[in-house]
């Protein structure tokens, strides 16, 4: 037997289905975002961990120049080491006929028989090269897809200076190469960097590594210390030209994946709470309005003998039911949306499988916040219910008292007509509610301002990097450091206008306990083609007596100008240098350290050596230049700046970049939700006033002013607030997104502000129009007869 009150509850729900649905949807969206983002981040984390685990990705990587195979046994004895694999890797150039420019590649050995003990691969298509077949290779699937290569195709590759024809037999994915970047570059690009797998015997022959290896991979035992193992490896392998062992945390592909997931985590921490808070606020105002409208029924129920508690519980149930319904819909939607986005990210990250992992806490938070928001509104319900005596409740309410807040200074009386005074006094009478609306709209707007400013920041980063910092057209690296004559030889090539030598050496930079496994970039005194810039955009000169650090590097190492830095060079005679920091440079990609090229060479006792060069060229002679460079065996790789720029823009616009557009849409929905709800409620509350105005002979537009004027003021007040909030929130978001791989500048973008303002104004206009349309249809007689 359903109790009559519960039956009323159900009928009320059906009667108010529109409004109930609207509130449920707002709550649902908040919960959905929470569940979706939480689930997505967890799924990606879990999938990555499982992928690494299943394909035995190494924990520590130790590159060396050349170490004999028997050293491997000694590595296995290091405490904390669970498994060891030795392999041969090398750089190569892949020559695809379609493209004039050769593509840089990394060649990786697989054991002559069986599968690798560490860093296994996932065969997508084809087969593994047959043992003993030196001409068979497997390619990284992403590169093959980008270049339309399939098993059976033949490619030319130059390894260690000699060019050979290879046959592609398989395409693979590897947890080691989720993102691929050419050495020294920071922008991942599937099309411009290849990974080649081949049998170790053939690769050893090509790189003179018979009986030796040049990279040791180490898997840690449970509880094994990565730092301890790295230190032991560095000591053990020092004699064999160790470049410095590094952990998974510094492995390039893993760092990119980590940064992406970290960015998602920042987004998931910022966006859903704002949404839920807005939902809570909407629920609160809608419910407090409902009690007002139902006061007559409340009085009636009490007159029948229901206790305040019973009546209060009745309304509490109503509200909590809506909240739970919304939260439930949101949870279901969140799971579905989380799966859909996870599938999208699966292909983005090239995971061969997905491990769905829901974030249980996001459900708890979602339900809890929804119900708390509903209960907050119900406190109002209870207060209203307990405060009403049946007799009072069944009389029309006394007019709202404006005597306290309605006083106006003389100037206001002179300047404002009566409708304007009505608008103003209402705002003054409900400052809390108005402030809530302003904060809510401001929050939505701040979200879109932040999003748009971050996009502007990305664009600024691209422009700064490729217009202000890198002004070259092409860069090139040599197989081994060359004598200065190489620069002159380059300058004589067709179309070359200017050549700027560089000397890059791998190095470990240390300051006390802080260290960074990076490189020192030797530059000419006044670099012109690839500049080093300061906090403004002014160029910084290289000086012999010190080192210039990129800002993120200085932050990691906790050094400032004047401090001394220990630099362990991992090349040549491997000197250890003590050098003062003389400047902090602004960079947006990577965390480099710069020295004057000759000072660096002197420290290495290799005067005049260059490892690469930046060039400006005559675009008309590009093809001739490329074919000339292709015939130079000393060149390990060539990169065109425009390719890198395109890849970076693409990286920012696809995948996680797309979530920024979603966030803008979400912001618009929030603004629309608040403005529309505020307008609807204002209209419901003032139906009688509006009808009275119309009866007195006010036109529709004149009466509309009284309603919409309030909305306009709230919206206009929210705009500057949203702009300022958004600007400061950008700093927080940017700090969350910036890493030592890339930094996003905070750009105050008038354009972003303009777009956000337009979005808010359009949302307000549309809401206003919708409400005005209903108002114009108002049945004057009915409106005057309804008892408030």
């Amino acid at each position, binding site marked *: 037997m359903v109790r009559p009150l519960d039956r009323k509850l159900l009928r009320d729900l059906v009667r108010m289905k529109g409004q109930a649905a609207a509130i449920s949807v707002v709550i649902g969206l908040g919960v959905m975002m929470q569940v979706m983002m939480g689930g997505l981040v967890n799924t990606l984390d879990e999938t990555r961990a499982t992928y690494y685990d299943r394909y035995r990705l190494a924990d520590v990587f130790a590159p060396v120049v050349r170490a004999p195979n028997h050293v491997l046994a000694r590595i296995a004895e290091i405490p904390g080491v669970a498994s060891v694999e030795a392999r041969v890797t090398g750089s190569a150039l892949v020559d695809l006929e379609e493209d004039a420019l050769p593509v840089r590649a990394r060649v990786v050995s697989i054991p002559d028989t069986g599968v690798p003990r560490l860093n296994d691969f996932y065969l997508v298509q084809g087969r593994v090269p047959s043992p003993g077949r030196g001409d068979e290779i497997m390619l990284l699937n992403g590169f093959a897809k980008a270049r339309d290569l399939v098993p059976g195709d033949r490619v030319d590759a130059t390894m260690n200076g000699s060019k050979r024809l290879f046959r592609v037999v398989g395409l693979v994915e590897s947890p080691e190469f989720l993102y691929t970047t050419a050495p020294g570059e920071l922008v991942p690009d599937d099309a411009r960097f290849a990974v080649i797998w081949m049998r170790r015997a053939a690769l050893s022959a090509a790189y003179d590594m018979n009986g030796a290896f040049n990279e040791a991979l180490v898997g840690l035992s449970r509880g094994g210390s990565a730092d301890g193992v790295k230190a032991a490896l560095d000591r053990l392998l020092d004699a064999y030209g160790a470049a410095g062992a590094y952990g998974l945390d510094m492995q390039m592909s893993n760092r990119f994946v980590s940064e992406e997931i970290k960015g998602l985590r920042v987004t998931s921490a910022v966006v859903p709470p704002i949404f839920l808070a807005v939902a809570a606020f909407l629920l609160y105002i809608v419910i407090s309005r409902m009690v007002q409208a139902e006061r007559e029924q409340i009085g009636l129920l009490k007159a029948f003998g229901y206790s305040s508690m019973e009546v209060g519980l009745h309304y509490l149930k109503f509200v909590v039911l809506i909240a739970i319904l919304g939260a439930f819909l949101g949870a279901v939607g969140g799971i579905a949306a989380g799966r859909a986005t996870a599938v999208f990210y699966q292909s983005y990250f090239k995971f061969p499988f997905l491990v769905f992992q829901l974030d249980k806490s996001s459900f708890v938070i979602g339900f809890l916040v929804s119900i708390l928001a509903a209960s907050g509104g119900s406190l109002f319900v209870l207060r209203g219910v307990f405060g009403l005596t049946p007799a009072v409740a069944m009389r029309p309410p006394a*007019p709202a008292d404006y*005597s306290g807040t309605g006083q106006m200074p003389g100037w206001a009386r002179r300047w404002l007509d*009566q409708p304007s005074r009505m608008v103003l006094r209402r705002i003054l009478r409900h400052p809390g509610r108005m402030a809530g609306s302003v904060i809510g709209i401001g929050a939505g707007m701040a979200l879109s301002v932040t999003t748009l400013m971050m996009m502007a920041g990305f664009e600024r980063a691209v422009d700064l990097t490729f217009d202000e910092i890198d002004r070259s057209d092409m860069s090139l690296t040599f197989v081994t450091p060359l004598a200065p004559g190489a620069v002159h030889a380059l300058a004589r090539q067709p179309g070359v206008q200017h050549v700027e030598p560089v000397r890059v050496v791998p190095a470990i930079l240390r300051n006390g306990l802080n260290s960074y496994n990076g490189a020192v970039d030797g530059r000419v005194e006044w670099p012109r083609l690839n500049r080093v810039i300061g906090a403004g955009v002014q160029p910084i000169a290289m000086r012999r007596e010190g080192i210039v650090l990129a800002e993120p590097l200085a932050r990691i190492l906790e050094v400032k100008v004047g401090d001394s830095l220990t630099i362990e060079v991992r090349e040549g005679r491997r000197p250890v240098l003590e050098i003062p920091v003389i400047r902090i440079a602004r960079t947006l990609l990577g965390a480099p350290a710069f020295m004057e090229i000759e000072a660096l060479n002197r420290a290495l006792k290799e005067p005049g050596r260059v490892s690469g060069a930046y060039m400006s060229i005559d675009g008309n002679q590009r093809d001739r230049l490329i074919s000339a460079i292709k015939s130079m065996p000393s060149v390990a790789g060539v990169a065109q700046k425009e390719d890198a720029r395109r890849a970076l823009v693409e990286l920012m616009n696809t995948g996680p970049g797309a979530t920024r557009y979603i966030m803008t849409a979400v912001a618009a929905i929030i603004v629309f939700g608040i403005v529309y709800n505020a307008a609807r409620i204002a209209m419901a509350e003032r139906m009688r006033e509006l009808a009275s105005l119309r009866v*007195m002979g006010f036109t529709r537009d004149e009466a509309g002013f009284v309603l919409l004027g309030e909305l306009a003021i709230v919206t206009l007040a929210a705009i500057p607030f949203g702009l300022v909030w958004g600007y400061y929130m950008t700093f927080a978001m940017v700090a969350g997104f910036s890493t030592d791989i890339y930094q996003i500048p905070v750009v105050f973008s008038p354009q972003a502000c303009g777009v956000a303002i337009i979005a808010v104004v359009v949302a307000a206009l549309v809401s206003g129009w919708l409400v005005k349309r209903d108002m114009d249809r108002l049945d004057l007689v009915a409106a005057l007869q309804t008892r408030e």
Partner: protein
Amino acid sequence: MDQKDKPITAFSVRGLTKTYGEGAAAVHALRGVDLDLPKGEFVVLLGPSGSGKSTLLNILGGLDRATSGTVRFEGQDLTKMSEAELTLYRRDHIGFVFQSYNLMPSLTALENVELVTEIADDPLDPAEALALVGLKERVQHFPAQLSGGEQQRVAIARAVAKRPTVLFCDEPTGALDSTTGRAVLQVLKDVNETLGATVLIVTHAAATAQMADRVLHFADGAIREEIVNATKLTPAEIEW
């Protein structure tokens, strides 16, 4: 207006019907009303609840539309007017007083009156209008600070401040006690006499009829009886 002796017709209603809903569920609120209301009279429309008297008032006041028939006001047919024309008609000629006073809670008594005088062509001075209803001392009070009778008097002041041709009152004393009710009726009488406005009061309080020039008895959507009072009582004399 020099035709003082000949009563000029304010409204001329012919064959007026109003039906809500359709088919079997149709409610016939007005079933063919014919009526001529002279200008400047004090008219009381009596009838039980649901007899259609408020519907008639709403149609005459331009708040509702007839299903069929004509309503002529100073020669113009209200049933042919557009929404905008009806708005202008209300603005220029009509004052309304309702049982629930419908004041703007956010405006003071004076401002509530000014709300109307701002958009009227030749209005009374708002303070004067409030003086007319005996509220000279309470002009700066907000509705919440006024009693029910005072609020109704503000509503009347607001309705008459535009110097309306016709003042429609729907149960103006319905929510008031007898003393306050009499005072309100006195104000309406004064307005009728000093401003020359036609006053049409809809009520089911039969006693009110004793002060009218003309009494219309309404039942089942039509006028059943029309009485012209030879002698009228003052509001003070009415048995409540």
